[in-house]
């Protein structure tokens, strides 16, 4: 039994241990903590059973009994790879810090402490299965970056303090609204006479009243979209990125924004299906606007950091698109792409740091150039990273973008997918522009032509190796995520409409069996809440989906794909025992669980 609390608190513990060590050696304490956490999470990934129980390695105790808040951690298909990305990112960042002046700074203890707290907070947000616990960690993970930027950032004291306060307050606008929404979700979902529970699963089962889902979803979406950030709420981005030291920025950009994506899949979609269905077009359009807007800014800015900053925004636009397509493949692609992008960003920021050092600290593209001839090893590593950023076929990023775009094509309007795919082309242009400006061209006046130092190149090799590994085995991530993403999008997909469900089932018939709410066996609660949504006059979902009658709607959706004569009874109630046609398994109606996972799906389990 792997105890998740160990993984969760290990980084913070090592951060505190660092306080007891002389300042010269503290960086190695940080590295040790991060590497141990990394080893732990590798074991977790290896131990993960893709088609096993939805929650693995569960930890569950009371935290604040008076409020019904519990300390619940679990590994799921959604978070297992993100946990690995987090530990990789922080290990990479710790190693990087150990080789730079940050690690030898007299105040290196602060760096290690805050980095440790940040890692604990990110892991906590990923592992938490209790809504309030999630919100607490989600809010907490910002604070260490405030200290890191304010103390060690670029620019004068005033500038970086202003930048980082702007960043914190901006992102808190969303986070604090999410706090209210989280509490409201828990309170509203609680039936009379029962204790409040903030367990995400339980809230999803209890169901939040339809009428409130709109504003609640808006609050959650605000928190996640600001964090990513998405257009037009990206105001903190440029200042924040410019002020943050690069080793910190790599992990901030590579890991923290992914927690927002995860938040959509883990929380917003399952517990607010109606809100998701109503407002998903707003989010989709923001995502596409983010892709186009950020890509064009990345094309025009001369600040190398900001090229990467805006490329992150564009990538996160893609990822959001995949999530909001409400299709398992789109969502799995989004998770894969989160991992890919994180890894690529680690390498890209390191490349910017190396290039910046050559130019005497300038991160202006116009001051760079000539790296390919003067520092060939670096240039080779850099081009691999560049390919990953631009999603070259052959990299896992390409697989991720492909899955996302396919999901968007099937799950949303096709026009949206076409417009979004412009972003793929633009990504090639800005990524290559960064590479060419940095590595080709004439060497600018200020540049010292020198190969990267060995530690730098060794560090740079880490993301390159990871990119290669992901390129050879992209399916691992997708496989782990498949069931979990199906579960995540299920409820919202059902609300969106029968056509949507039918398309999902056509693509992947096995999706029907996945607990807790199989497509073929829609529980009565969804039926009772549906008419309220249908009775509303506004809302994109009801416009795009004229068949608002729940019973006929579902019968149409289910029938052709199952090929079963469920016509009247299948739509009326979920209480009949059903035999699944594709697998021959009995579906237990009370739990909605298939009695045993079909043998066809267990291939990866014995690993």
């Amino acid at each position: 039994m792997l105890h998740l609390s160990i993984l969760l608190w290990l980084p913070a513990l090592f951060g505190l241990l660092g306080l007891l060590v002389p300042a010269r050696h503290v960086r190695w304490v940080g590295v040790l903590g991060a590497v141990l956490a990394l080893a732990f999470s590798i074991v977790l990934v290896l131990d993960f059973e893709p088609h096993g129980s939805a929650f693995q390695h569960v930890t569950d105790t009371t935290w604040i009994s008076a409020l019904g808040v519990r300390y619940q951690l679990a590994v799921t298909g959604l978070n297992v790879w993100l946990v690995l990305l987090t530990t990789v990112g922080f290990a990479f960042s710790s190693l990087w810090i150990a080789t730079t002046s940050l690690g030898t700074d007299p105040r290196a203890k602060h760096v290690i402490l805050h980095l440790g707290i940040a890692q604990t907070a990110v892991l906590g947000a990923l592992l938490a299965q209790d809504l309030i616990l999630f919100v607490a960690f989600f809010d907490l993970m910002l604070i260490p970056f405030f200290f890191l930027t304010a103390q060690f950032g670029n620019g004068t004291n005033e500038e970086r303090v202003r930048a980082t306060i702007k960043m914190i307050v901006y992102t808190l606008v969303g986070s604090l609204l999410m706090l209210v929404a989280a509490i409201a979700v828990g309170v509203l979902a609680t039936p009379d006479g029962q204790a409040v529970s903030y367990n995400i699963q339980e809230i999803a089962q209890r169901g939040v009243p339809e009428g409130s889902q709109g504003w609640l979803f808006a609050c959650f979406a605000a928190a996640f979209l600001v964090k990513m950030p998405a257009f037009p709420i990206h105001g903190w981005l440029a200042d924040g990125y410019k002020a943050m030291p690069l080793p910190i920025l790599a992990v901030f950009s590579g890991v923290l924004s992914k927690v927002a994506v995860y938040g959509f899949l883990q929380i917003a979609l399952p517990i607010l299906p109606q809100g998701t269905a109503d407002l998903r077009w707003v989010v989709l359009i923001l995502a596409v606007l983010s892709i186009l807007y950020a890509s064009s800014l990345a094309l025009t800015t001369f600040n190398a950091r900001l090229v990467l900053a805006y490329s992150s925004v564009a990538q996160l636009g893609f990822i959001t698109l995949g999530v909001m397509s409400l299709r398992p493949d789109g969502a799995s692609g989004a998770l894969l792409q989160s991992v890919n992008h994180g890894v690529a960003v680690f390498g890209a920021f390191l490349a910017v740091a190396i290039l910046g050092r050559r130019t005497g600290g300038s991160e202006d593209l116009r001051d760079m150039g000539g790296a390919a001839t003067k520092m060939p090893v670096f240039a080779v590593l850099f081009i691999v990273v560049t390919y990953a950023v631009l999603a070259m076929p052959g990299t896992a990023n390409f697989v991720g973008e492909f899955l996302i775009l396919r999901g968007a094509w099937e799950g949303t309007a096709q026009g949206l997918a076409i417009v979004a795919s412009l972003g793929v082309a633009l990504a090639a242009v800005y990524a290559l522009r960064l590479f060419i400006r940095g590595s080709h061209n004439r060497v600018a006046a200020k540049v010292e032509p020198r190969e990267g130092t060995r530690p730098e190149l060794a560090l740079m090799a880490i993301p390159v190796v990871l990119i290669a590994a992901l390129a050879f085995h992209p399916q691992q991530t997708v496989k782990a995520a498949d069931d979990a993403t199906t579960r995540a999008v299920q409820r919202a997909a059902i609300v969106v409409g029968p056509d949507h469900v039918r398309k999902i089932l056509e693509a992947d018939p096995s999706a029907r069996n996945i607990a807790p709410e199989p497509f073929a066996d829609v529980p009565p609660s969804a039926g009772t809440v549906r008419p309220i949504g249908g009775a509303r006059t506004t809302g994109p979902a009801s416009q795009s989906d004229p068949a608002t009658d729940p019973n006929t709607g579902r019968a149409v959706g289910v029938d052709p794909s199952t090929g079963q004569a469920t016509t009247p009874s299948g739509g009326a109630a979920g209480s009949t025992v059903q035999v699944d046609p594709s697998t021959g398994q009995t579906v237990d109606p009370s739990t909605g669980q298939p009695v045993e996972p079909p043998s066809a799906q267990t291939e990866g389990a014995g690993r």
Partner: protein
Amino acid sequence: MSTLAVTEAPHIDWAGISSLIALFGGAVVVLLVGLLRARFARLTLVPVLTIVAFAASIGLAIWQWDEDTSLMSGALGLDPLAMIGVVGIGVAGIAAVLLSIGATAPREAAHGEYHAMMLVAAAGGAMFVGAENLITTFIGLELLSIPLYVLAATELHRRRSLESGLKYLIVGSVGSATLLYGFALIFGATGSLDYAAIADQVAAKGLGDDPLMLGGVAMVVVGLAFKSSVAPFHQWTPDVYEGAPTPVTAFMATATKVAALIAFLRLFDGALIGASDAWGPALAALASIAIIVGNVGALGQSSMKRLLAFSSIAQAGYMLVGVVVATKLGVQATVFYVLTYVVMTAAAFAVIEAAERESGHDGISALAGLGRRRPLHAIALTLSMLGLAGVPATVGFVAKLRIVQAAVDGDYSWLAIVLVVGSMISFVYYLRVVARLWTDEPAGVAVAPQSQAVEVEAPEAVATTTAVADPKGLPAAAVPGGGAVVVTGATILPMTVLAVVAGAAIVVLGVIPGPLMTVVEDVARAVPELFR
């Protein structure tokens, strides 16, 4: 029992009022000991005895915890709400006494008198939180306020301090008068002074829309809003906080808040619960105004004491939310919040007092680079600021969580949103303070052109600088009255102790809030009217 007993002298439950007696008795003893000529008696014995008195009253309150009756013909409640108030005031009092060690104010006002007044004020607060009768409420309030008017003016040679005392006196009297007039109207409408009888009358006669009653309630709201510095009745707060000696400010900010908020709970969620339709929206509006005005007002402040004054206005707004919803959850949330507020504010004032002794002023610049000079102080203040802002892993987060839950549960979701919007604004000024602690070099102040400021920055310089000698113009911080009295070589050890204890409490209670929450669960017993 209360109505039958009036013909005879009421039975006095000495055990029940023992915590009050400890405070009054302590005041007398301290006053007498203060007259001794020995330096030891005045400088050491008096503060120690004061702390003993506070501690005794806390201990006696805990001893009486399980009681649930009323004393002296229903004049005073003896229930967990009252006892938790006594504990809160006692903790605030101990903090204030620790801050007073070596401070200017007790020396100028004579140690005995200074500490005795603090004990009397605390006794008034203890009466105020227990009062279940309009008369005792008023007596408790006056007993709490009048010593504070004097204490605010105890730095006799500083004009700001005198001004602060006078301002507090005038505004406080207006508040008291308004409150008293409101009480009179409520008495007129219901014909009784007891909270329980008032609640019965309101329920029986349906006085929820009686003009006399509503007039009375409105004036009580205004009067209590003055006392607990809820905007728009807050104008006195920044000036008084800034002008009063810092230990007194700390006492005012914490003890008065505990007393006023618990009085709010008792009066509104107890006696006047039947009229909640009338006062609910009004209090909700006041709370929102306080949250916005307090947080926006704090943005431009460069004096720490003024900043905390505005922040306390906002915090009073947060705490009122629990009163507004008038539910069991709301009562618990407010009590929990006010207790945590005491801890967080005590930590902040401890650091401010120490910085003031070193630099001679309370401007934010006095804190620059504190992270390198005095890491313990910097950590404590950081935790305090993050806690007041409501960052997770501090007790402020849990407190805010409770308030928001109470608001959402009581169908005041919009108020919860106002609350978090206010917290967002608050992050700007709290984080600005934190940034100054950690980012600035200790020599950061030397950037200022004038060279006189140099003494301030020398890391170990036990500040001898007066604010007058500091010409770089910290407009709000400098003491224009001249002759800022800074104690040279004054100890800061008590401040460090207080800061460390309070800072640790902020984190420990933030991570393990369970025990304190269980204690707070009990207080709902004191407002049975909520369950009718």
